[in-house]
């Protein structure tokens, strides 16, 4: 647990506050992360110096705004090692990226008899769009099961082999589960999918800001992520798509900026990525995301990921000593991303979170946009603690202390 990390806390102004009379211990990073001063300032500076619409402008501000926006695109391509900037589409977030693929690619390419494979641990954002498009096209949605009564066994890779027939046109799966902390073998799944001719859509919401991502090495066809989950502003996200695919996809939205020719009777589209960016883009937040990528890579994403994983492992072990606790996802000692989900036999997650908040500890309680998995596990909800680079072992102490207090309060300790 490198001490470098506690030095980074000062970069995040929001952490310097008290909640309920206690210093804030923010452990809701899987929902959204905080922004370093460098990102907040990059957004403000854009508005103070370069603010303008992009693309069609020939005046100084407009050229600067265009340069800033396109530099963010090139930076994003480097961030995930895309072969070409044209493979980077800016969206409003992971959810929009998945919907774009569902409506721009799947709606045109799926038909009755085709299968989309998803996993039982998918976030609603990488599940509901496939439900919708399967309903629209007559294709069938199937799920790769999750193993173990606490989902500790991860994806059932044998079941995957069986499910992967020639009918499968797309495998949509999350790189890291926001509910379980499971890290899925993305490259392996992509290779298996490719072997039967299926495309892959990887939900990178929980991985992009936490490890070095290389979409070419991973071998995925689409990869989606959100800025706000990796130290960047809200309202900006990314869809990576292989160029051959993007160039043949239908636009999802019509409007300014995505057309090459408009006549009153019909229109023609620009190539990717512009084809998928109708309307004035979120320039300021793209510039802010650029700053976030620089920030994260200056710390080093592999180091960040290791730091979080160490905190999560510590939290898992310490929490497992509490009476009546049920911990989800990988067992102690198994690889786990930077989060821990758990439930108490006698205290509901809502009460846990409300109580912890009074101790200054920010947690998330609920289904974490993963209702069907909760249902399968027989849990109405869980409490989740999720870590990021600015968290410390002391934050784990605060979490465990708060949990002990609530168990006592409810007479369950």
């Amino acid at each position: 647990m490198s001490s470098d990390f506690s030095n980074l806390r000062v970069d995040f102004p929001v952490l310097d506050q008290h909640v309920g009379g206690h210093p804030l211990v923010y452990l809701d990073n899987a929902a959204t992360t905080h922004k370093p001063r460098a990102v907040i300032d990059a957004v403000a500076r854009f508005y103070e110096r370069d603010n303008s619409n992009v693309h069609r402008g020939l005046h100084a501000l407009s050229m600067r705004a265009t340069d800033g926006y396109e530099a963010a695109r090139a930076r994003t391509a480097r961030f995930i090692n895309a072969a070409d900037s044209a493979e980077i589409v800016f969206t409003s977030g992971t959810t929009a990226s998945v919907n774009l693929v569902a409506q721009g690619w799947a709606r045109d390419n799926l038909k009755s008899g085709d299968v989309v494979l998803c996993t039982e641990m998918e976030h609603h954002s990488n599940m509901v769009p496939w439900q919708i498009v399967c309903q629209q096209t007559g294709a069938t949605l199937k799920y790769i099961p999750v193993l173990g009564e606490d989902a500790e066994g991860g994806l059932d890779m044998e079941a995957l082999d069986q499910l992967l027939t020639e009918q499968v046109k797309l495998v949509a799966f999350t790189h890291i589960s926001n509910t379980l902390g499971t890290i899925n073998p993305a490259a392996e799944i992509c290779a298996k999918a490719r072997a039967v001719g299926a495309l892959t859509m990887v939900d990178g919401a929980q991985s992009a800001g936490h490890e070095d991502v290389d979409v070419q090495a991973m071998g995925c066809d689409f990869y989606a992520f959100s800025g706000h989950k990796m130290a960047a502003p809200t309202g900006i996200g990314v869809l990576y798509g292989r160029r051959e695919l993007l160039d043949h996809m239908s636009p999802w939205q019509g409007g300014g900026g995505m057309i090459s020719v408009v006549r009153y009777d019909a229109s023609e589209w620009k190539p990717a990525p512009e084809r998928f960016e109708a309307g004035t883009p979120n320039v300021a937040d793209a510039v802010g995301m650029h700053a976030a990528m620089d920030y994260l890579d200056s710390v080093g994403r592999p180091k960040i990921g290791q730091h979080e994983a160490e905190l999560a492992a510590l939290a898992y072990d310490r929490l497992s000593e509490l009476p009546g606790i049920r911990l989800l996802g990988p067992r102690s000692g198994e690889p786990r991303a930077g989060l821990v989900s758990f439930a108490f036999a006698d205290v509901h997650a809502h009460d846990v979170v409300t109580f912890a908040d009074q101790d200054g500890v920010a947690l998330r309680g609920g289904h974490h946009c993963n209702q069907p998995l909760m249902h399968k596990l027989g849990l109405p909800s869980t409490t989740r603690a999720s870590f990021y680079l600015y968290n410390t072992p002391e934050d784990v102490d605060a979490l465990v202390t708060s949990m002990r207090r609530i168990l006592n309060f409810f007479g369950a300790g």
Partner: protein
Amino acid sequence: MSDLTDLYQAVILDHNKRPRNRGKLPQATRVASGDNPTCGDNCTVYLKMEGEKIGEISFEGSGCAISQASASLMTTQLQGKTLAEAESEFDEFKNIVTTGEEPADFSEVAAFAGVHAFPARIKCATLSWHAAIDALNKPDQPVEN
């Protein structure tokens, strides 16, 4: 912590630990459910009417301490009430949980005044009440249990 003990008053902890009228009602003539899917809370209310009045009432479901205690207390409050009376009790309850004003007459529902400081929890407190009013508004009919 003052807010918290306001929220989790003894009355609430007690109803949460030892819920009254919990379980299915074998001869129920009306039933309605509600849920708060974002939390996973759910609640089903069973009524056996005696004319215009609630003869027997029970609830089932799962949720946080606030929602469980509120459901339990609700059943004790609405027993013997007509629809009109139940609606006016619910109005009073909603007023308590949204404003924090404690009712003039000393009553257990006053324990829920602390909820108003936790707006995200108001839905937990009112879930079972909504189900009860829904059930009251239905016609009598045999309920499959």
